């Protein structure tokens, strides 16, 4: 097999990989700024320079010429080469900064050049702490600067569009943002203007950077030139913990990180997943986090009066006990996890009620055949795999006909959705799991149970393509339990967030419970044992008992989720 030698270590390769990409995939760090694996390589930052040599070939035999010791004679390129554009060939020898002083010097030189006109305002820059320029300058750059002149002044604090703010002076002209709009989102809304050292990215005259994916340029900007108008100056990167999870504003299940400070979500950024969303996230889903922080329903209530959780569970159980057999209707939710919906179907089954339905939330024209979908719910596929069907109006008819005594609603809002009216609900006892005080069904609720949102629970969602993915708690709630605590500890990339570490914070705790806590509590009072050690075990039971989920264990899902078909689930 073809081989390449990098810093004395030999690697095998297939095809014609590019050197920088190959190094990254093999865990060899080569500093770089402009290269991004999803986009073309303009080789403009000149940071990834390496020494490259190829074996000297004998023209007649077409074999490498050997020296006296029998080793191939290597002929080095006279100039340093950009590893991002260099195609690897058989027998190539590469020297990075680890084995070549010339390369080490060149990398130091480039960083010196990059920094001379950079404002070095890291103390007030949102990028500080996770800034490739800052990190690589410390790691590979010179210790000081020999530049003794006034820096170039460029426009600062320029809103390029509704979400993105430009600081021209921080820009190092890598053109990643321009290439993103040209090659990925295809909106062509950014270009470099001016010339030479005065260059910076800008929209064409009369154009606003309102690309629905505009905020991705913030993530790929290797400096703090492009920042989020929404989240800038709100939290330093080291004050936040980040949790790998998925967004729930659509049916694609885009992978993301939730950034948390003081139990508040501060921002949402994309998490790489080649199967689902590659490196990107739509703006709408990044900005869809305020509902986790604001207008949260705090503590349960019975008859509109605040109560304890125990009293609320008791009240819910007695309402259902009093209802006649089959006269409790269950409404599941495509916003809720597979686990919670499964528990609901079990409860409905035990009480002799018909299988829960769920409310479809579709907004025609919202989808874009990419990461946005018409469907605004994250788990429709998961609900259907549990045998639940979308609500088409049958529930309203049953209520109108007086066939329903109690309506049990899991994490949804039938009034706002237009499925049921307040008048229709007047004669029905409603048990409602709700996230926010803005829930329009809340006034009709006899028992309200505040529900944990996607950033506070553990569970599974299945996207529109049958890709099952786990969510993990990004922040604490008031009623933390052992499972949640362990999941927070395990999932947050910084391993902080438990009461035992210094980042633990009691502020902004929401008094709510995940469905997999509250549903078994109610079921137990109805004599239905639902003893699970946690959602992981619920999912294990689902994988064993529901053919559409065969093989869908947490282990199989891992960090990147799993296509249910691939683990043997029935389609």
């Amino acid at each position, binding site marked *: 097999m073809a081989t390449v030698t990098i810093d004395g270590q030999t690697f095998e390769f297939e095809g014609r990989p590019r050197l920088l990409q190959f190094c990254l995939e093999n865990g060899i760090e080569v500093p770089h700024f402009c290269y991004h694996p999803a986009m073309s*390589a*303009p*080789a*403009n*930052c*000149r*940071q990834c*320079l390496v020494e490259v040599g190829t074996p000297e070939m004998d023209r007649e035999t077409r074999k490498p010429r050997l020296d006296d010791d029998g080793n191939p004679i290597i002929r080095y390129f*006279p*100039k*340093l080469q*950009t590893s991002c*554009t260099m195609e690897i060939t058989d027998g190539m020898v590469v020297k990075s900064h680890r084995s070549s002083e010339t390369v080490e010097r*060149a990398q130091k*030189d*480039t960083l*010196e*050049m*990059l920094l*001379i*006109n950079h404002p070095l305002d890291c103390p007030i820059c949102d990028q500080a702490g996770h800034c490739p320029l800052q990190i690589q300058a410390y790691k590979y750059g010179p210790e000081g600067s*020999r*530049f003794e*002149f006034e820096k*170039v002044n460029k426009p600062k604090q320029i809103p390029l569009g509704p979400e993105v703010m430009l600081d021209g002076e921080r820009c*190092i*002209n890598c*053109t990643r943002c321009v290439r993103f709009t040209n090659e990925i989102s295809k909106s062509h809304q950014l*270009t*470099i203007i*001016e*010339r*030479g*050292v*005065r*260059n910076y990215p800008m929209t064409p005259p009369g154009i606003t950077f309102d690309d629905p994916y505009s905020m991705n340029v913030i993530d790929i900007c290797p400096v703090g030139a492009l920042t989020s108008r929404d989240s800038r100056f709100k939290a330093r990167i080291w004050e936040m913990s980040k949790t790998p999870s998925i967004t729930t504003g659509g049916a694609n299940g885009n992978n993301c990180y939730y950034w948390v400070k003081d139990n508040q979500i501060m921002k949402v950024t994309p998490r790489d997943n080649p199967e689902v969303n590659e490196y990107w996230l739509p703006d709408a889903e990044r900005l869809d986090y305020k509902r986790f922080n604001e207008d949260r329903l705090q503590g349960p209530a019975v008859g509109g009066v605040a109560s304890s959780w125990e009293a609320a569970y008791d009240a819910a159980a007695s309402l259902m006990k009093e209802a006649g057999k089959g006269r409790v209707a269950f409404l599941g939710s495509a916003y809720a996890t597979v686990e919670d919906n499964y528990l609901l179907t079990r409860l409905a089954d035990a009480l002799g009620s018909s299988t829960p339905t769920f409310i479809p939330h579709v907004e025609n024209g919202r989808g874009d055949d990419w990461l946005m979908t018409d469907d605004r719910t994250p788990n429709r596929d998961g609900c259907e795999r549990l045998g639940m069907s979308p609500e088409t109006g049958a529930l309203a008819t049953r209520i109108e006909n007086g066939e329903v005594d109690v309506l049990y609603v899991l994490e949804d809002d039938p009034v706002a959705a237009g499925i049921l009216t307040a008048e229709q609900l007047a004669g029905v006892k409603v048990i409602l799991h709700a996230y926010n005080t803005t829930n329009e069904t809340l006034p009709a609720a006899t028992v309200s149970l505040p529900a944990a949102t996607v950033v506070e629970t553990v569970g599974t969602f299945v996207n529109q393509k049958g890709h099952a993915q786990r969510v993990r708690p990004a922040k604490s709630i008031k009623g933390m339990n052992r499972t949640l605590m362990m999941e927070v500890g395990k999932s947050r990339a910084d391993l902080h967030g438990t009461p035992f570490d210094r980042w633990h914070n009691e502020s902004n705790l929401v008094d709510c419970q995940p469905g997999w806590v509250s549903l078994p509590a109610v079921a137990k009072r109805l004599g239905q044992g639902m003893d699970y050690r946690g959602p992981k075990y619920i999912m294990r039971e689902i994988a064993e008992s529901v053919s559409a989920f065969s093989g869908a264990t947490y282990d199989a899902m891992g960090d990147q989720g799993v296509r249910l078909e691939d683990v043997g689930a029935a389609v």
Partner: protein
Amino acid sequence: MEPKTGKAGDWRNYERVLLPKVKDLHLLEVYEANGGYKALREILTNDKWDPTAVTNEVKKSGLKGRGGAGFPTGLKWSFMPPINPDIPRYLCCNGDESEPGTFKDRQLLEYNPHAVFEGMLIASYAMSLAGSYLYIRGEYADWITHMEGELKKAYAKGYIGKDIMGSGFSTELYIHKGAGAYICGEESSLMNSLEGKRAYPRVKPPFPAQKGIWGYPTTINNVETLAAVPEIINRGGEWFAGIGAPTHAGPVLYGISGHVNRPGVYEYPTGMLISDLIYEVAGGIRGGKKLKALVPGGSSTPVLRADMIDGVTMDADSLREAGSMMGTSGMLVMDEDTDMVSFLRRITHFYHHESCGQCTPCREGTGWLENIVTRIDEGEGNLRDLDLLIDLCSEMEGRTVCALADAAAWPVRYTIDRFRDEFEAKCKASLVPSGVELTEATA
């Protein structure tokens, strides 16, 4: 040491071919009356001229590119991939001449535009191209207007377009106006500009012959290079190869500017003695002063001291030996009163202004160089600045996508190297160790 006679032979009786002494040659009628488009007719109507034969004739002539790099033209043409009817291929004539000291293509565009057209058409035939572009810098607006008129006339006469002269060969020719950026003279940047994109140079490989304009095989030649082609066909490659320096043959346009009595563009054979060009052709140094320095081929080529030009001739070999380059043969002549620091300040300003800003070392380095040279020129520099300048040149040379960083660094490196005493004299004396008295010898 080269012979004092130079390699240009009997240049005093040289008969001009690129810019012949013909009144109103820029008009099609006059050009035709003086043998214009004869070469094109010859290759299109005489069966002995298949495309390969034309290329071979150009190879035989030894014509080297006149745009600065001096690459053999015939060889460049032969780099075009084999013909594939599904894949268009292009020629681009580079008329974006904008390096300080270079103004020779302008003469051709102004006085002999049809020679450029004819050269382009012959090249199009040699490489079997369906179309070619003539990219001219926007500042040459008047000549562009004139050339567009002449191009229309040539189309009307059937020299360009479908089935030229009944030969079955068809090709189009377009004039494209640049918008005033030095970088557009870099061939890959020129292609981006032509395509309507920002004129950032492209990463090579792929080279233009593989992936050029619109992603298709492209050859790019300088105006003067292509203007020489019709006479190579008319008089034969051997005739051309016999003119001037054997290894760098042919007539060439010398653009002589600076402190000479008769600055201008002069057509003579290659291999002229620099001293002949300055003292005879350009009428000597203004005011009878002494020569101090000379830049032989446009501002990016290394400057030569007066004592370095003895016996040096204007061809690649001799100039390389002398420590410089032929470049575009745009000569900057400087007399004994010239302040070399001030000269370098102007040059660094130019490259700072013209760096496209794509690559870090050039974008940042060109401005830094100008800053330091300006500081020295204003008497605020320190001796260590000179070492820093040389160090910065090393940080820039060979580390960018195109050669602009090299073009910006070389003048700094070589002007300091060859006139270091002048730079040191302008630096602040504060860094000179105490007790050392500055004399003329040590300053």
